[in-house]
C-alpha cells in the first residue's frame, strides 16, 4: 500500500471552465476518494422571486445558466402556466420544442468540444465549436441574443418566426448534420479517442439507480429516464430515447452524438409540421395560492421546477433542481479508483454545469 496524499483540484484549473473544488485522496496515482466542495458560484437566485413579479422573474430564471438558458426559461414558464391554469397555443409549444432542441444541439457540441480538449485533441475541439457557431447564428438572427435569448415568456413565446427564418433553421440543420456525419465518426472510430474513453469511468446500471443519476450519464448505462417521452408532442416529432449499455465514457459520448442527430431530425419535423395560430396568450392577475411542478429534459438531464403562489403577484417560492446537482454523487463514485490523469476527463463526462447546480 502506497502513501496517501491529498491533491486539491480547482477551483481554478485549466481543464475546468467553471469553479468547483475537489479534494482527491490519492494512493500512489489512484484516486481512492474524491470530496467535492461547491459554493463558488452561489448567488441566491431563488430568493429573488420575492422581489420580481412572476412575469419578470423569467429573466432571472434564464440566467440560472447561460448554456441551458432556454430550458430554464421554459421550465419556469411551464410551472407558472400550470399554477395559473393557462393553456398555451400549440404553435408556441412547437416553437419551444424547436428552440430547446436547438439548444441541446449547441450544448452537446460544446460538450464534445470540451471533451476533445480534455483529451488533448485540439483540432477536434475547434471543429466541434465551429459547427456549434452555426446554431448561435440562428439564435442571433431570430432573437438577437447568442446565448441568453429571452425568447420564452410566461404564456408562450415572444415572437413568431417568418418563413425565411424557418428556412434558415432547416438549412442550418442540414448543414450541421452533414458536418456531424464526419465529426461524429472521429468520436466513434478514432483509435486515440477510443483508447482513452473506452472502459474508463464505468458506472453500472445499479450505480445509476442507487445514485439516481439523470440525463446522458444514466442513458449511457442503459437506464431510460428521459422526460421527453412523457410529452405527446415530442412523440409526434419522432422522439425515441437514445440508450447505450457499457456505462463508460465512450457510451456517454455516443449518447450525446446520437442525440444531436435525433434532435436535428426533430427540429426539421417541427419546421415541417408547425401548427398555425397564435404564439402566446396573455397571463395577467395574481398567482393563486397553491404550487405546481414541471419537468424539462435539459441537455444534461432532468430539470425540476417548483413554484408556489401565495395570492399576490410575487411567488413565495421558485425552486430549481438541476441535473448536475443530482449527478455529483455519480461523479464521485466514478472517480473512485480512477487514475489521476483521468480526473479532469471524468469530471467533464458528466457535463458539469456548476452555475446551474448552485444557482
Amino acid at each position, binding site marked *: 500500500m502506497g502513501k496517501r496524499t491529498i491533491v486539491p483540484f480547482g*477551483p*481554478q*484549473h*485549466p*481543464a475546468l*471552465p*467553471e*469553479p468547483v473544488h475537489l479534494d482527491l485522496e490519492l494512493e500512489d496515482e489512484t484516486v481512492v476518494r474524491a470530496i467535492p466542495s461547491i*459554493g*463558488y*458560484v*452561489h*448567488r*441566491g*437566485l431563488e*430568493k*429573488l422571486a420575492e*422581489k420580481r413579479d412572476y412575469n419578470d422573474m423569467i*429573466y*432571472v430564471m434564464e*440566467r*440560472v*445558466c*447561460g*448554456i441551458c*438558458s432556454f430550458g430554464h426559461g421554459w421550465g419556469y414558464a411551464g410551472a407558472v402556466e400550470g399554477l395559473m391554469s393557462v393553456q398555451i397555443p400549440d404553435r408556441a409549444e412547437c416553437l419551444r420544442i424547436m428552440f430547446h432542441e436547438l439548444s441541446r444541439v449547441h450544448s452537446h457540441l*460544446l460538450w464534445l468540444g470540451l471533451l476533445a480538449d480534455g483529451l488533448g485533441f485540439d483540432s477536434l475541439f*475547434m471543429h466541434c*465549436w*465551429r459547427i*456549434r*457557431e452555426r446554431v*448561435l447564428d440562428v439564435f442571433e438572427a431570430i432573437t438577437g*441574443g*447568442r*446565448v*441568453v435569448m429571452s425568447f420564452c415568456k410566461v404564456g408562450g413565446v415572444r415572437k413568431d418566426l417568418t418563413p425565411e427564418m424557418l428556412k434558415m433553421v432547416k438549412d442550418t440543420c442540414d448543414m450541421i448534420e452533414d458536418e456531424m456525419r464526419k465529426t461524429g465518426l472521429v468520436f466513434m472510430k478514432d483509435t486515440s479517442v477510443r483508447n482513452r474513453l473506452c472502459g474508463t469511468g464505468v458506472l453500472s446500471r445499479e450505480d445509476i439507480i442507487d445514485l439516481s443519476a439523470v440525463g446522458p450519464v444514466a442513458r449511457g448505462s442503459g437506464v431510460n429516464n428521459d422526460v421527453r417521452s412523457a410529452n405527446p408532442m415530442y412523440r409526434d416529432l419522432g422522439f425515441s430515447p437514445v440508450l447505450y449499455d457499457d456505462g463508460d465514457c465512450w457510451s456517454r459520448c455516443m449518447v450525446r452524438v446520437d442525440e444531436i442527430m435525433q434532435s436535428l431530425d426533430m427540429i426539421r419535423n417541427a419546421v415541417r409540421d408547425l401548427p398555425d395560430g397564435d404564439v402566446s396568450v396573455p397571463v395577467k392577475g395574481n398567482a393563486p395560492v397553491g404550487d405546481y411542478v414541471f419537468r424539462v429534459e435539459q441537455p444534461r438531464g432532468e430539470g425540476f421546477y417548483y413554484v408556489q403562489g401565495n395570492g399576490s403577484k410575487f411567488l413565495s417560492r421558485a425552486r430549481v433542481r438541476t441535473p448536475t446537482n443530482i449527478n455529483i454523487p455519480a461523479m464521485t463514485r466514478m472517480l473512485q479508483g480512477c487514475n489521476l490523469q483521468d480526473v479532469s476527463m471524468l469530471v467533464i463526462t458528466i457535463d458539469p*454545469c456548476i*452555475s446551474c447546480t448552485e444557482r
Partner: protein
Amino acid sequence: MSGTTKSPWIMHYDASSCNGCDIEVLACLTPVYDVERFGVINTGDPKQADIFLITGAVNDQNKEVVKQLYDQMPEPKVVVAVGICACSGGIFRDCYNIIGGVDKIIPVDVYVPGCAARPEAIIDGVVKGLDVLEKKRLKLREKEGKK
C-alpha cells in the same frame, strides 16, 4: 518585455457568473473569432498571465480566490471585467450572496458590458487592455530607472 503587447496571455476565471460570458470567452478561441491569430493564449497559470479576464459578480466564497489569483499575477497586469455582472452586479445585484462588481475586490482597468458580452466585445476589451498594459509597463520602467 515588449513582446507581450503583441501576444498577451490571458487567464480566465468565473467568479459566480451564469456561464453565458464564460462560453463567449471560450467562443473567442473558435475558428470563427480565432484570437490565437493575435497570439492570445488562454492560460490556466496566473504566473504566466498578463490579462485577467473575470466574469460574474463576486460572492463571498469566491472573493479570496479572486484576490489570490490577482496577487499571483506578475506586474504589469490588467484586469478586464467581462459582462454586466462583473461591471456592477447586473441582474444579480439584489441577491443575498452577491458583493457587487469585481471592482469592489480588485482594481479593474477595462469594463466590457453586455449580457452576455459578445465575443467581438470581449476581443475589443482585451485590445483596450493592451494600451493600459503598455502604459503600466512604461510607468514601471520609469520607477525602476529612478531607483
